[in-house]
């Protein structure tokens, strides 16, 4: 670089006096320019005392400190004495800081071994299960408290949530339920046509939608739409200390934030499911009419031969349970979230996963239960 020739370079010269080495520093020491190395200066010499002084140093920065640090480290390693008494106090102070920083910056081995990871994960599972039960218990206690003083229930919030998770979800639920009905009907048509059993498409679509698919699909949509939103909202509130603010006022977050949401989902989910059932059946009807030339009346009459009220009821009961599961998972994950932007994202993801997992488990339990009860 042309500039470097104009700047007087950093210089270090050494003179041997018996056992001691006198190092003299001069010139401009800048960290952006090359600096002399102590080991070059040292050569073969093995002094027992190294004394350093600054003479005609025009400017200096960390570069000078790095040189001095190298001298100091060499002295420590070789058992020699580092005599820095001739250096300005400011340089000595900063050198001290650099030495301390060096000691503190030694990399630590933070990687845990396999058994430690497994151990911690196992412990965490236990903690999580306990947290879930704790949360459920709190929900029950809050419900009991509210029954005794219903004035404290946040009806306004509950209605707002009902609108959010119910009415506002109608378009997406309509679309998905209708298309599921269409898809099911197409798939069924392939098989049923081969046996001339076209008309039974009405039975299949009706029964599948009412007992199973209507509730499950609506719950999946709401898990993604509402459960994730609950988790993100609560996690964000936690990050902003809004939950702490409630706690310091002695208002349980569960009572104030969770119950209105749970109730909203518990009521809206069965209603949405009934609606989804109707749309799914309509989807099947359109395919049956268009593809298999089954008249709507025939479709309807055939469907009524197999679908009765107990089927509809079993679907609706399941929907109510799924609603509570989606709400519980969303709120639990939201309240458990870390106080960070990443925590909010994780809470939302985890809410959806938890909701769908618990829902499938619950669905299996319901299947066994309804079978035993003969519904």
């Amino acid at each position, binding site marked *: 670089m042309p500039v470097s020739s104009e700047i007087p370079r950093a210089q270090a010269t050494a003179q041997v006096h018996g056992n001691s080495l006198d190092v003299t520093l001069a010139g401009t020491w800048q960290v952006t320019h090359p600096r002399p190395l102590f080991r070059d200066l040292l050569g073969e010499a093995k002094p027992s005392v190294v004394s350093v002084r600054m003479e005609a140093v025009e400017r200096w920065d960390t570069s000078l400190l790095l040189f001095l640090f190298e001298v100091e480290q060499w002295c420590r390693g070789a058992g020699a004495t580092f005599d820095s008494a001739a250096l300005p106090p*400011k340089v000595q102070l*900063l050198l001290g800081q650099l030495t301390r920083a060096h000691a503190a910056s030694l990399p630590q081995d933070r990687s845990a071994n396999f058994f430690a990871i497994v151990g911690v994960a196992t412990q965490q599972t236990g903690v999580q299960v306990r947290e879930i039960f704790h949360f459920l218990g709190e929900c029950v206690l809050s419900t009991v408290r509210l029954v005794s003083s219903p004035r404290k229930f946040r009806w306004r919030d509950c209605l707002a949530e009902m609108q959010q998770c119910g009415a506002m979800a109608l378009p997406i639920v309509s679309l998905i339920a209708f298309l599921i009905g269409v898809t099911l009907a197409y798939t069924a048509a392939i098989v049923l046509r081969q046996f001339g059993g076209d008309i039974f498409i009405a039975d299949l679509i009706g029964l599948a939608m009412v007992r199973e698919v209507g509730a499950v699909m609506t719950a999946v949509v709401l898990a993604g739409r509402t459960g994730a939103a609950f988790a993100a909202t609560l996690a964000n509130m936690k990050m902003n200390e809004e939950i702490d*603010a409630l706690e310091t006022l002695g208002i349980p977050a569960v009572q104030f934030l969770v119950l209105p949401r749970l109730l909203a989902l518990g009521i809206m989910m069965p209603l949405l499911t009934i609606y989804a059932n109707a749309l799914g059946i309509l989807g099947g009807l359109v395919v049956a009419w268009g593809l298999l030339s089954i008249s709507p009346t025939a479709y309807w009459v055939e469907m009524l031969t197999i679908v009765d009220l107990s089927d509809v009821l079993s679907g609706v009961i399941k929907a109510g349970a799924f609603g509570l599961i989606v709400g519980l998972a969303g709120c639990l994950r939201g309240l458990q979230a870390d106080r960070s932007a990443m925590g909010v994202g994780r809470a939302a993801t985890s809410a959806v996963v938890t909701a769908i997992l618990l829902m499938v488990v619950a669905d299996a339990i319901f299947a066994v239960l309804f079978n035993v009860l003969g519904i």
Partner: protein
Amino acid sequence: MPPETSPIPAITVEQLTCGYGRDIVLENVNFSVARGEIFFVIGGSGCGKSTLLRHMVGLHPPFGGVVKFFGEAFTQADVTTRRGMLKDFGMLFQGGALWTSLTLRQNVALPLEEYTRLSRREIDEIAAMKLGQVGLGGFEDYFPAEISGGMKKRAGLARALALDPEIVFFDEPSAGLDPVTSRKLDELILQIRETFGTTIVVVSHELASIFQIADRVIMLDRAAKGIIAEGRPRELAVNSRDPRVTEFLVRGDVVKPG
């Protein structure tokens, strides 16, 4: 509540040991705050000031020790007793912690709705009055997102004052505020004490506030895991022989390269 002349301190902290998970942040901390005192908890970042505050107000259970309000144990109390005691103190969080889905009026009204049997109209009036006291008259129906950081803090303060608490806790009241707004908040704190005789506990490292309004301070230190100084701020600044205290209160010079 004990009478005004009662020798029982507003807050007593005895042998408090607290932290998070397995990390002990503070060990065997003892101090007390007299009624009507403006008491500061000071110290560098990470020394446990906010931790102490969060444990005092019961947001986390301490590892050991006890916190008493007006002589009554709070940390060990059962849920019902605790809930009764909670309404005797208010807390202003760092960012205000206003409930974002509620307007300022609704924010201030919520504690009143929870703890009183006042009519809707009365609650609204009190909320408006409290907001007026902190200089937010006319902003009652704004949402938190529509007002500035300083206003959020003042609204948070109005909410903390909603139930006319005996003690108000402030977590870093001047954090993120410009000097003028910060000074106004200090004045507001003084005014609250003058008007209501409220006991005030402030966590802060804002030197101006400390010297301006603190009656007494305790200084925490991360390495010591506890209190390293206690007294009046000016006396500490002049008389303390502890370099950690003087460095904090007098501000040492930073060495720069030549």
